[in-house]
């Protein structure tokens, strides 16, 4: 089993409060890793460290290492744009770019260097199909993306995230704002594409975790309590905290 992301001694502080505490995690390649944990335990922060979106928050002080392809992403001189491009991001709520539906995807393609109208067009159609959106929007490609429904927008964001041609997909509760059908589609999509991607999904929903996880990282109050293969985690948890979480004690 190959490791895609290796996190070593990661600490995040916001002023004096510690948000993440000595995180040591290995995320296997081409599998779905689910980050579980009660609200406020630091799941989103951990995810944002991986593509250095923490840089946007000057109040956060990050220390430690995150190795991707054996390169530390926090090393000075690291190409952050390229790093982020190698990771598609799907957030809790969809944020389409203020452009047309077509351009939302074309923009991502252009950023990764695709040139030529015809090539762009074919690829845009392809990604729309991959996100199961093509049939719904093919008549309205030149409309603003904000006119789509939330579920459609999230699928557009999925298409956009795939269009940058990433190796890794980071998803922060990607289905929590969606209807059941769009949710199920996204879950199934992750299953389908995981041979080609390393997928990290944050979720609150145990049921969803059981359904899609190959591996689980369980966090509590800024620390990783337990990590390992999903089957072991759900059937035979080692830690007391994990057991009570699985029994629904935290909710």
């Amino acid at each position: 089993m190959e490791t895609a992301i290796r996190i070593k001694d990661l600490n995040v502080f916001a002023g004096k409060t510690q948000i993440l505490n000595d995180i040591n995690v290995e995320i296997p390649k081409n599998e779905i890793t689910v980050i579980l944990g009660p609200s406020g335990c630091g799941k989103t922060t951990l995810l944002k460290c991986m593509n250095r979106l923490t840089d946007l928050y000057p109040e956060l002080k990050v220390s430690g290492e995150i190795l991707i392809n054996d390169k530390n992403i926090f090393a000075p001189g690291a190409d952050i744009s390229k790093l982020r491009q190698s990771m598609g991001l799907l957030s809790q709520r969809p944020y389409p770019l203020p452009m047309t539906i077509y351009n939302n995807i074309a923009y991502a393609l252009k950023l990764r260097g695709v040139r030529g109208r015809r090539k762009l067009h074919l690829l845009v159609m392809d990604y729309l199909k991959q996100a199961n959106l093509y049939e719904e929007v093919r008549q309205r490609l030149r409309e603003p993306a904000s006119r789509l429904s939330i579920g459609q927008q999230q699928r557009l964001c999925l298409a956009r995230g795939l269009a940058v041609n990433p190796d890794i997909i980071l998803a922060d509760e990607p289905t929590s704002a969606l209807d059941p059908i769009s949710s199920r589609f996204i879950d199934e999509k992750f299953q389908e594409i995981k041979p080609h991607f390393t997928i990290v999904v944050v979720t609150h929903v145990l049921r969803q975790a059981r359904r899609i996880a190959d591996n689980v990282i369980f966090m509590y109050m800024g620390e990783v309590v337990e990590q390992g293969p999903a089957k072991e985690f759900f059937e035979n948890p080692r830690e007391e905290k994990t057991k009570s979480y699985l029994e629904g004690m935290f909710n």
Partner: protein
Amino acid sequence: MYLLNRHQRHVVNYSWMLFSLLIIAFLPFMLFGGLYFKSFLLLKTHTLKDLVFSHSWHPSRGEFGFYPFIVGSVWVTLLAIFISTPICLLTAINVTQYAKKRFLRIMHPVIDILAGIPSVVYGVWGILVIVPFISRYLGPWFGVQTMGYSILAGAFVLSIMIIPFILNIMIEIFRAIPTELKEATLSLGTTKWQMVKHVLLRKALPGIIASVGFGLARAFGETMAVLMVVGNVIKVPHSVFDPGYTLPALIANNYGEVLSIPQYDSALMFAALILLAVSLFFNLLMHFFIARYNKY
């Protein structure tokens, strides 16, 4: 406990709200109507076309050509907007996207102070600094003889005056853009500048237009500071170094002393009517643009 029962109170509250709403809704019409009524004396003997496009302003002969004032106002206003808009836009982008948070905390009170300075003070500053600067350096540099009291001086002073207003709105607009949109954009692998250029500016466009429109309306009506530096010569200016005259200055300089000349009073009301019409026009234009670009 109460004088009225609940239903009665509801009715009173409701009719009171309706009343104030009606007043506010009708205020522009009432203003318009009043000004129109007052300028009627002038409109009876002159065609609108004559008034707006005639160059000759000789009230004692009954000639009222507003063209020099309109041109003066439009030049000063547009120049001021051209100067202040890029400055505000770059500053707003800088303090909201690039500078340390501390910087914005310092900026805010500074902007508020600038906005609160009375316009006479700006006028004095214009006379002491801008006017000599233009006559001694800027004019000669362009090979032009100028007193300094000019359209350009008016525009400079005006642009400084409206910067705090435009800047304040623009900063709010850029601050209101959700961080998540920035995260989504950056996660595609954009640089920060690409994010600003392709996404944030597009997102902020309706607001930017609105802020410029707001500045435009303010600038067009600004009286005192412009009056002090613009020269007040009733002639159509041919370059920005020429002196000019603006509509608000016309009203402010002459109202109350002119009752001996027939129709003069009415002419000043007509100037006010033009001001009102132009600011309404700007307003509508802005709403049109905002509606047009707000779809994203």
